[in-house]
């Protein structure tokens, strides 16, 4: 299908990786606002500063879902510090690019990740 979304975006939209919840997550981040169209929730399972499991739930457009999915793939197995270095551009790039009007979706993914890590740190104290 020729369209605004790359094949990678469509692949992650159709087959989202790591979709779901983690019951006993160590960190949870929820960002976005339904009034802007997208809500993203990220669950992290962390052991020894390493992200051993990650899941997401997203209400949003194709780009939002694909960005969430790609973010989980990119951070799984990484240390927290490595994960924090993940920029929204990196997510967009890994997806083969996003239409200009949709770049904010990759920003949302970055924000969700940061919020989840912050939540983890807060919980950890």
């Amino acid at each position, binding site marked *: 299908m020729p369209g605004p979304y790359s094949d990678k975006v469509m692949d992650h939209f159709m087959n989202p990786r790591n*979709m779901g919840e983690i019951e006993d997550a160590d960190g949870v981040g929820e960002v976005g606002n339904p*009034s802007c*169209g997208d809500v993203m*929730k990220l669950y992290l399972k962390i052991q020894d500063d390493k992200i051993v499991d990650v899941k997401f739930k997203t*209400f949003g457009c194709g780009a939002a879902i694909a960005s969430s999915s790609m973010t989980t793939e990119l951070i799984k197995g990484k240390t927290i510090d490595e994960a924090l270095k993940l920029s929204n551009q990196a997510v967009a790039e890994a997806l083969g690019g996003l239409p200009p*009007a*949709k770049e904010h979706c990759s920003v949302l993914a970055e924000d969700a990740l940061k919020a989840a890590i912050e939540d983890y740190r807060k919980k950890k104290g």
Partner: protein
Amino acid sequence: MKRIYFDHSSTTPVDNRVLDAMLPYFVEHFGNPSSILIEEGGRPHKAVEEAREKIARLIGAQMNEIIFTSSATESNNMAIKGLALANKDKGKHILFSDIEHFSIMNQADFMRNLGFEIDFIQVDNYGVVDMDDLAKKVRDDTVLVSVMHANLEIGTIEPIKEIASFLKEREIVFHSDGTGSCGRIPVDVKDLGVDSMTISSHQFYGPKGVAALYLKNGMRLSSIMHGGFQEMGYRAGTENVPGIVGFGEAARFAMEELDERVHRLVTLGKKLWNGMESTIDFLHFTGHPKKRLPGHVSFWIEFVEGESLLLWLNLNSIACASGSACASNMMAADETGLKASHVLTAVGVPPEICHGSITFSLGKDNTPEEVEHVLYVMPGIVKRLRDMSPLYASFRQQEGKRK
């Protein structure tokens, strides 16, 4: 799999019979209709006038009340700018309904720069213009009012006749954008009492690149497209002859087959509406339940985002629109293009939902089987997207607690 096209609000395919009528005018009868002294100009000139007559007949107008343009957008621009400028001695105040298409709405700033004042008439939750609000907003210096005949996003048909008679008493010029109505439902401009009306070819199986403005005899309109003497001086530029011929044929077929088409579409629309209602929970229809375009079903679904729904439908070979049919532009330079639909906001849909609206607009060639297939596919997609939604998860949790 064969595609199921439920997006006739965005555009329609050209009818094969229409294309056949156009073909001789590209190569064989290619002449310039203004070159009537040479043989090459004669046939194209005649073809343009015959098409004019067909359009006129479709909407109950006189031939010399039809001005050809290149799009509904151009007709709307011609009407608002041209009528306001020609009648500005009468006043500077203009009223648009809250649910006009961008091709009316986005003229507001330009008109303000020319010294006009623009106000907006409210609609009720069904998208029907509020006559009381109109009465309240009309002023002594109101020169022009624009209310569309039918809204392609939510399907509602407006009380044009009532508005026209209210405005006639006050000698206020009345333009109605008939993009959604002409060729789809019976339209008689004399009976409606409008002063001008936009008619769009590609909305009823005619080609893109051509449209018309009905302009009532005796109305003053300043040209905004200056040049040669085409279109009685109202709209300069060499005529798009094949386009005009196709438009004319499409109008003829629309007229001949109108009853049949409406009947079919009402039936299919009802089937789709009822099916949706019984299979999808937390579903809200938009627009008026009765006074609406035949075969037009629009709604939003709680906890389901519209674009994702549209993409999944597309992957299932079903074409529809989310948000305004013509307006949503993903290729916008940045995210400012992604505003919530002003139409849905106007009918009171909460902004977070506006992105979630879907319009199914059926056409003359859709079948009951297609409706059934859509009804069969929908619940699965809705479930899939809800399962992904953190909003739905927390809603279910809350619900669980309440129980």
